[in-house]
Every structure is written in C-alpha cells, then in structure tokens.
C-alpha cells in the first residue's frame, strides 16, 4: 500500500461532497426582533446584583414600615364586625364611675357557663 502525500490525500478528500443548504433553510428577518409590545410580555432586562440587592432592601424596609401590621400566621381568625371598615372609636363622654367595664375577653368568662336546668323567674314589685 502506497502512502498518500499531501496532494493525493487532499484530492481524495475532495471526493466526499456535501450537499448545499436546502431551500427550507431560510432565516427570515421579519419577526425575529420582537415588537415593543411583545417585549413587554417576553422581554427581559439585566439588573446588576448590587442594584437588585438595594431594591430588595428598600422594598423590605417599606413593607416592614407600612405593611407589617398583618395578623400573625397561625393566629385564630378574629370576628370582625360589619362596621369594621370605619374603625372610629369615640371615647365615652361621661362614663359613670360605678360602672366598671370589663375589658377582658368574653371567652374565658363563659368557660364555665351552663344554661339553667329550670327557669324560676321572680317578680319583684316596685315599692313606692
């Protein structure tokens, strides 16, 4: 077997032909660049990490300052009256001193509450 020199090898390699690009290979430039409206839905922007961190930090500060009064997760739901939309609290104008208003929640006071077995109303006549 005779070895090839450069020219012989090159001419032998040229025997292997490759086909031309098919007609279906057609890069249409129309539509490759998205329109501005399309960009609003599919576009992306690159944000440097420091800028992103500052934005996240500022957003967190705002959330803590103005949006942190939400109920804690896991707390029982509190019944809110219908007029809770207008939480106007008016202080009592002249509260009688002998009347003590219990501020304690109602639920502990009703813990041992049971309905009476027999109702015995008493009529007390007014003395004049």
């Amino acid at each position: 077997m005779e070895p090839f020199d450069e020219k012989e090898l090159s001419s032998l390699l040229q025997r292997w032909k490759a086909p031309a690009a098919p007609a279906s290979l057609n890069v249409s430039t129309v539509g490759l660049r998205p329109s501005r409206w399309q960009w609003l839905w599919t576009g992306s922007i690159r944000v440097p990490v420091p800028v992103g961190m500052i934005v996240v930090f500022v957003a967190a500060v705002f959330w803590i300052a103005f949006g942190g009064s939400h109920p804690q997760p896991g707390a029982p739901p509190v019944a809110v009256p219908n007029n809770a939309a207008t939480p106007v609290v008016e202080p009592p104008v002249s509260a009688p001193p002998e009347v003590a208003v219990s501020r304690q929640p109602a639920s502990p006071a009703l813990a041992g509450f049971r309905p009476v077995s027999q109702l015995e109303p008493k009529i007390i006549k007014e003395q004049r």
Partner: protein
Amino acid sequence: MTAISFRAHSGNYYCVTEAEFQAVFNEHKDAVYRFVWRMTSSATVAEDIAQDVFITLLRAPGRFDPVRGTMRSFLLGIARNLALKRWRDEHRWEELDDETFRPDPVDPKRGDVAEIVGAAVRALPPLQREVLILAEYDELTLEEIAHAVESEIGTVKSRLHRARENLRRMLASLGPAKTEKGERSSHGTIR
C-alpha cells in the same frame, strides 16, 4: 427596515439593512450548512445549527469584529461551537481530542470511495475533524481556523497533522492507484 449593526474597523458601529443581512446569509449559508453537515453527518442537525448561527448573528451582530477575522470564519466559529455543544450533550464521556486515537484501515469493499472518505473523516475525534474540514473543505488559512476554533495556530497545526496522519492510516487501503481505479469504475474516466 430593521437595522443590524456590525463593528467597524475603528471600533465604532455601523449599520446594515435587512437586505445586507440577506446578502450575508445567501453568501455563507452553504458553507455553514456543509460544515455542520460534515461535522454531524445529519441534515436535520445541520439545518438547525445553520439557522441558529444566523439568528445569533442577527441578535448579536456586535460580536463580529472584522479586525479579528472574516465573516466566514466568524460564522463557522459559531457553527463549530454549536456543533460541539451538541456533540458534548450526546457523547458526555468521550474525549474531544483523543491523541491516542489510532484508527484501523477501512475496508475498501465497504462502498463508494466518497462514502469511505466520509466515514473516515467522521471517525476522527471532533477537534481533529473540525480543523481538517475547515482546512480541506472550507479552505480557511491556519490563522482563520485558529480564530474560528479559538485556539493557537500551533495547536491547530498539531491537530491538523494528527488528523491527516489518521486519515492516511484509515484510507491506506485505497492508495493512489486504487483511488484512480475506483474513480474509473464510478465515473468511467480518470481525473
């Protein structure tokens, strides 16, 4: 009309129109397609990658720098990267440039001379195959090949040398005399 900017020699950008892009596409599409076809031996993959090459050019035209090389070597470089990426996905555990690759001579009764040559080229490790294809079929200079494959000229020379040695070994059974004989049998004349 959509404008596409290419980097000028001065480093500034100038624009080409869609028509000019189409001219680039028409001029280089066959070279890009043939290169990928020879690298992958798949018409479907060649078409996909060739399309991706021109879409890459369209989306990032500023990556082309005429100072560093020609448009053709730039496009072939993109095609080479895409083809190698696909090859790596499919042959995760194989060496790209296997220096220990020692092929056996091909059987001359295996088929047509062109088919045997094609099979021999496809049997080369990818990094040897790409420089051989770029040198022999795309007729790029060593400098252009080095630009396309992002390697030093010395590395390209070395790979090209190994590729040719391997091909000589594989195609030895064809020999110059047998090649002429094969050509006569298939075409009826000796070139």
